[in-house]
């Protein structure tokens, strides 16, 4: 868990961006939004083209040989001494917290620990390293926030999302009941135990709707495709998007250009 206090570095001139496979394939706009927010802070963003997946799906499924092979292919992508910024608490947590365990007793142990030490979740990095100031250009809107369990408990950044959203003066953030409870995604859990997972996400959608949110934002694309996908299938009105897509829209819009959270 997040027992150790982590010191934030000074704002660097350059970072690596690890986009994650879900963003690469399904939500590239969230990746672009994140990169542009970093660039707006005057940071040069390097996106290694050879990145694929952090290895987490195989890791949490118990297939550690396969996870290690894929993770090992990522270790060489960050030769410079720059922070590695990840727009996901889950993939960030995998790299930061689990790489050292995964590579323990292997020749790459040192490299894995070194890489892990440079991994930051994007919103945490924007708030606490870049000290970002957001000027809201969107129209008034209301959202709920779902902080993923890995962002909350592995990366310890539960306060970051609310802090960023509170900078947006036209955005009302509502708090849903049991906000800290899992949405039921859990990677392969959602397909190994689909009924339990569905019961969890049903409660999550209900809680957000009860709070009066037409839309939600989240730090993780796994939760996003679970919650939004469930709402869509059940023909519920709730829609969602990655928090950095939302933030980028709010700050990059021309005034009066609309600020839908869809």
């Amino acid at each position, binding site marked *: 868990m997040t027992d150790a206090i982590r010191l934030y570095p000074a704002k660097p001139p350059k970072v690596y961006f690890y986009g994650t496979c879900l963003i690469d394939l*399904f939500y590239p706009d969230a990746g672009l939004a994140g990169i542009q927010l970093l660039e707006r802070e005057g940071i040069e963003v390097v996106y290694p083209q050879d990145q694929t997946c952090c290895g987490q799906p195989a*890791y949490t499924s118990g297939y550690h040989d396969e996870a290690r092979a*894929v993770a090992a292919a990522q270790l060489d992508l960050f030769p410079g001494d720059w922070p590695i910024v990840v727009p996901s608490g889950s993939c960030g947590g995998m790299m930061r917290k689990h790489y050292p365990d995964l590579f323990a*007793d292997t020749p790459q142990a040192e490299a894995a620990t070194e890489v892990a030490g440079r991994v930051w979740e994007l919103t945490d990095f924007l708030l606490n390293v870049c000290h970002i100031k957001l000027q809201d250009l969107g129209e008034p809107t209301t959202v709920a926030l779902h902080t993923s369990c890995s962002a909350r408990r592995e990366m310890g950044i539960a306060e970051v999302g609310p802090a960023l959203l509170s900078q947006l003066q036209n955005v009302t953030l509502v708090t849903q009941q049991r906000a800290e409870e899992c949405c039921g995604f859990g990677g392969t859990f959602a397909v190994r135990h689909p009924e339990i997972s569905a019961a969890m996400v049903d409660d999550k959608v209900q809680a957000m709707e009860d709070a009066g949110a037409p839309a939600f934002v989240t730090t993780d694309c796994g939760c996003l495709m679970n919650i939004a996908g469930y709402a869509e299938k059940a023909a519920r009105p709730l829609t969602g998007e990655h928090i950095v897509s939302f933030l980028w*829209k709010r700050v990059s819009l021309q005034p009066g250009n609309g600020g839908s959270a869809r």
Partner: protein
Amino acid sequence: MTEAATHLSDVRQFHPRAHAALDNPQIRANFRKAMDGLMDKRRNAFAEWDLETLRTLGANVRQQALANLPDLLEQLEKKLTTNGIQVHWARSGDEACEVIRDICVARNAKRVIKGKSMVSEEMELNHYLEEQGIEALESDLGEYIVQLAEETPSHIIMPAIHKNTGEISDLLHEKTGTDRSHDVNYLTASARQQLREKFMQADVGISGVNFAVAETGTLCLVENEGNGRMTTTVPPCHIAVTGIEKVVGTLDDAAALLALLTRSATGQHITTYFNMISRPRQPEEFDGPEAVHLVLVDNGRSSIYQDDQLLDTLRCIRCGACMNHCPVYTRIGGHAYGTTYPGPIGKILMPHLLGLDATRDLPSASSLCGACGEVCPVRIPIPDLLVRLRRESVDGDRVHESRVRGHGLKRSTWEALAWKGWQWLHVRPTLYRLGTAMGARLRRLQPTTAGAWTRYRTSPRLAPRTLHQQLRERQTGSTGAIPARQRGASQ
């Protein structure tokens, strides 16, 4: 042994039992309400404490005790023996049952009254004693209800939490003739009345132990109903039974754990009763049992002890906070697990007691949300241990060997092959880019169903161009900047 076999087949029925529980609105409502209440109580109980420091203290106390376990157990045995408490060792649950039977037989005891003990549930002691012609009656109210209903506990602290007042009223009416009532105090008083007589008639009282203090030879028992004190003081003989991991060094250690236990479990600053038992009745004393025994049960614990990582499982002080905060337990309840210990702690403990083959669906029945690890008063890294057991159940690691009984039995050829294929693509960046770009181009052919995922959700749609593609174009300067339509312009 036939019992063990039945138990085993039960555990394997996790999916159907979980589905039945999900479809039962009464079960869902009972657990949600109870768990919400327990989470609130715990939060309030720790409100004025530096919880993280206290949890670190609790973890250290348990870690230290486990590090010195063999020595502490010897010290405990010596001290207890000096104090006049007889110590027995049992390798398995069956052996422990036999030890208890022998004590009962030697005393010609026919009636046993029991305080709450999860180890005795693990041993299926009541069932065994019944077969030996010895009546064993549970005196903890929740356990009493569960026994009347011929069920097993659904929670380690609140055994009958799956029942609401109406269901309990019906049960008491049917089994004991108590008038039906929704007045909890009336129902409790009625059960108390029935039990009071049984205490007086009992030949032996059997209890569990929360902490066994090696330095002083003290058996500590935490309870709220007074039934623990009755069980350990009224009958002429008291048999305490506990796992070998429950020993701690000093009374200070016990104090730290007590502060964490009651707050984590029921949100109480202290329980109504805290019993410290150190010797049988002395000649000058008027009450208390004339004989006290302690049965120390291994039942798989020493095999957990052999592994540096799995060892953390044994830190557990049985507070139940992990299940109270578990989103899976809250929805399916304790019986769905089919194991003595349900919820997160059950998922990491039961595979050692029953083997990974029998408990094959338990390690995966978690979203790894981490709520259990976050509230554990002794910082057991439950999610990490679940991942460890998942790895063992498919023998998924050539660097770190599997050690748990029944490992590798969940490995299926097709799943292993699928992960091999996944690996093959993801260690070849050029092929990955080619394949994903092709997928993006052919996205209209993306199937709308994706196995169990789309049973309850729509499938996420592939984007027209991957992030890799978009950024490569940008880097090579084909457009020089991100196209305006991706600048977040409104749709």
